[in-house]
Structure formats: C-alpha cells, structure tokens
C-alpha cells in the first residue's frame, strides 16, 4: 500500500484528551453528556454480533468521537493474518465510523497459539520487512490508514539491529501508517533498558504522530534491579507528565488518551486525569500560536 502519499495527522479526532471506554462507565456516559472530548474502545470488546455492549458503543458513538484500539490482531506474528479477526474489525469500523484505528508494534501468536499479550519484536531488518508487509496488508484490507503504537518491553534481543524508535520511524515511512506514541510505554522501556526517553521522542517523525497515550505503571524489584510494568492500573506519574510535556513540545498538540484498564476508578477520577492532559494540551496550543 505504498502508492501515493496519505493524509497524515489525526483525521477528525480533536487534539484534546479522551478516555478509554470501559463497560463500567457505559451507563454514566450515556445518561449524561460529560466533559469528555472523545472515547477509545478496545476493538475486540465490541466484536459481538449484537447485544447490549455493542448497542452501548453505537449510542456513545453518536455522542462522542471514537477511536478503535486493537489488542489482538497480532500484526507482527509470522502466522498468516487472522482474516476472521480482520473481518470483525472491518465490520466494527463500518458500524461505528471511528476517527482513528490503531494496533500495536508487537505480536501475540505463533503456530496458531495466541498468548493474547503484546510481545516484543526483535528490531531487525527481517522483522521490519515483515511488519511493514503486514501493516500494508491490514491497511489494504481495511481501506484506511491505521496507527501503530509502541509497547512497553521487559526484555531486549541480543541481535537487534535497530533501535525501537528507528524501527518505528522506518515502519511509518515504508507503510505511511500513522504512529500512536505511548509516552508511558517509552518511559517504562527507557527505565527498563537504560535509554534516554527524550531521544526516542525526538527521533520519531512528528508528521506521522496521530495520537498519544498516557497511563500508569507499577514497579517490580528483582534484587538490585527494578523493572517497570505497564499495568494501566493507576494515575499517570509525575515523570510521565513531564515527558508528555516534552512530547507536546516536539510534536505539537495531539489527541491524547488516558488509559486505565485494571482497578478501574470511578468516572470522575478518569475525567480528572483527562482534564490534566487537557491543561498540557492548552499550554502546547498557546506555545504553538
């Protein structure tokens, strides 16, 4: 899918803060129009043929801009792309008309066995060629541009040939996909592997960045070493807010999602985090003016 340039950017998604849509908040979001700029739904949660979950999503879509964020396509896998999964994703896109559709720079299955996790790729030329072919295949099937998100990682492969940021940048340039830059994931991986997170942000080409993610993480100790785990279970920490500020300086205002997937708090707490992100975005707009 390299024929001609695509329109980059964030489509019709506003450069404001949104929140991840979780079933616990469906009713509250439907009963009253909240100060939510947009919602992001995990695609697989709405693959149903019918029923209340899907019905709620479509009703919410009438109230708020929507992004669909997949976690199960396993784009980086060497197995054939799962056509059934793609068909369901396409059907959901047709039903809900999202402004953005995203997936991950990862894989989750091999030999037909799924681990349903965001597993790390070795950053090699072989993996880059494979990933680029797969992103093209997905974009062709969906007839639209997708965003690819960097994941947190807890290991690195000895024979890596590229940094993650160069891998991402090259992937975007080869496929014209957009990039979803998860600031928390950069922070987590930087701490786990000892690189400068600002270098990562600077090396990602800004024109491809269509969305940002923010989330909380936890810290595990292994003897003298710490490993940060991307848990999406708590507030965004101060260091990640600072890195987010740097990302906005680098890329300009971008739609920004607050992700909170486990130990999900009451809606006002999520909205509070989104309001915080909006204050950063407002500053970035003022600086850009």
């Amino acid at each position: 899918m390299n024929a001609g340039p695509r329109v980059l950017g964030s489509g019709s998604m506003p450069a404001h803060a949104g929140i991840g849509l979780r079933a616990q908040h469906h009713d509250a979001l439907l009963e009253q129009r909240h100060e939510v700029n947009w919602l992001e739904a995990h695609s697989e949660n709405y693959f149903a043929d019918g029923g209340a979950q899907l019905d709620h999503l479509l009703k919410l879509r009438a109230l708020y801009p929507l992004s669909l964020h997949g976690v199960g396509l396993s784009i980086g896998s060497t197995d054939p792309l799962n056509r059934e999964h793609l068909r369901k994703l396409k059907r959901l896109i047709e039903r809900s008309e999202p402004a953005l559709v995203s997936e991950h720079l990862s894989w989750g299955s091999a030999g037909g066995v799924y681990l349903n996790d965001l597993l790390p790729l070795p950053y090699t030329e072989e993996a880059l060629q494979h990933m680029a072919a797969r992103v093209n295949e997905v974009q062709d099937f969906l007839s639209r541009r997708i965003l690819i998100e960097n994941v947190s990682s807890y290991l690195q492969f000895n024979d890596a040939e590229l940094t993650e940021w160069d891998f991402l940048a090259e992937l975007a340039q080869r496929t014209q996909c957009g990039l979803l830059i998860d600031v928390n994931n950069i922070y987590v991986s930087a701490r786990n592997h000892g690189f400068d997170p600002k270098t990562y942000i600077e090396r990602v080409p800004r024109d491809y960045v269509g969305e940002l993610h923010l989330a909380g993480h936890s810290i595990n100790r292994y003897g003298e070493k710490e490993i940060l785990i991307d848990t999406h279970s708590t507030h965004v920490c101060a260091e990640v807010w600072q890195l987010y500020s740097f990302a906005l300086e680098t890329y300009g205002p971008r739609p920004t999602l607050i992700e909170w997937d486990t130990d999900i708090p009451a809606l006002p707490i999520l909205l509070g985090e989104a309001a915080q992100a909006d204050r950063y975005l407002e500053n970035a707009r003022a600086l850009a003016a």
Partner: protein
Amino acid sequence: MHSLRELQRRFVSALLWENAGLLTNEITADGIEPVQRLQIYRNNARIGFLTALETTFPVVARLGGKDWFNQTVWRYQQQHPSFSGDLHHAGELFADYLARELSGSDYEYFADVARLEWIHQEVLIAADSTPLDFSSLQSIPAADHAKLRFRIAPAARWVRSRFPLLAIWQANQPDADETTSVDLGSGPSNIVAMRRNDHVELRECSDAECVMLQALANNLNLEAAAARFARDLPDDDFSATLLQLAQRELIVDFSIDK
C-alpha cells in the same frame, strides 16, 4: 539469531510450556536473568487468560475457590491455549475440559455449570433479532406446512444436565442468600437461556422444548422435526410444544422448502 518465525515459536513455547531454555541465549540479561524477564510475559499471558475465564465462569470460580480455579485455568490454558486474538473465545472448551478432569469426582457438576455459563456469554453477544410474527404464516398453504423450517433466535441457547443447574447458578449469584443450600441429587434440569432487554433470562424448560429446539437448530423441516419428536417423545404433543416456543419468542424466522 533464529528466524523471526522460529523465535516466535520458541517464545510461545517458553511462556506456555515453560521451555525458557529454548530462548535464553537470545535475550539480553542486563542484570536480570532472561528466565525472569520471560516470567513477566508469562505472568501477563496467564493473568489475561485467567481474567477472561473469571469473567465468563464466575460461578465455577466461586464453587471451586480461587486457588483451585487459578491452577485449573493454567492447566487448561496449557492444554487448550487461546486460538484467537479475542479472549472472549478462550473458554469455549472449558466445560469439556472440566468434564474430563472431574469425571467420577464429587465435582462433576462443575462441567455443567460451566456449560451454562458459556451459553450465558454466547447469548449476551449473539446477533439481535425480532420474534416471528406468526400471522405471516397465514399465506402459506396448509399443504406446504410440512416443508416449513423455523429459525431459532440467535440469542437463545439451551443446556441439559443431570443436576439442578438453575438452582446451583442462582445460589451462587452475588446477591444470593448465603444460607441457601442445593441438593445436588434433586434431579435433572434443562435450562434455556435467552436475551431479553439486554439481559439474559434463564429458565427451566421441558424435555419436549429441548428436543424441539434441537430439531429446529438442526434445520429440520416440520415433517422431519415431527418425526424426530415422535421418536424421542411419543407421549408429548408436537404442535403444543411448537406453539410454546413461539409464545416464548424463541422463533424468529421461517423458510419453506422449494
């Protein structure tokens, strides 16, 4: 360095079947053993799978207790790993697995509870439909009635058990009376699950309804369904049972053989 395909195959094996040695030479240690780094991913994969099954099978989890459920689900995941990027499918074989694992034990009924919970989930996400308006059959000549095939509501399932399944399920709901006890020997039961107004209605049904539902689900026309019914339940009333399914809004469409 292995090919990407081989690396991924080894990674899955390391996580799911604990063959970490297949991969440790590929991973940078940097102060933490590769085995420990892989363990982080194994935990993530286990927790994601476990959470999906806890959501689908809350009554089985409650009956068995947290430790039993965690260990059982891990063994199940190792034998029947997920085959989809959508974890909603992960529990599809869980009832059959429990039936094998618990055969001959006092806990055989867990398998039937799992079957009920699985159809409960299927019904929640099945396609929407509207009940058949039976007045639309008035235009069908009586001579053609034997050629009719009825379609059951997509959001309807049923399960048959030699245990009092509905009573077990009800006694293990979050708002149930903790003092309620269920006599497992109190007889068999048939349950039909159907979605109504965004929630799943569970109710007991007769053997006749189950046989009729199965005949229609097998896409038999009325002539063949009646023959099947007469064979299995010679003392029951075929027409009355069909009418009962219609009144319960379990039939949504029909076709007629050419």
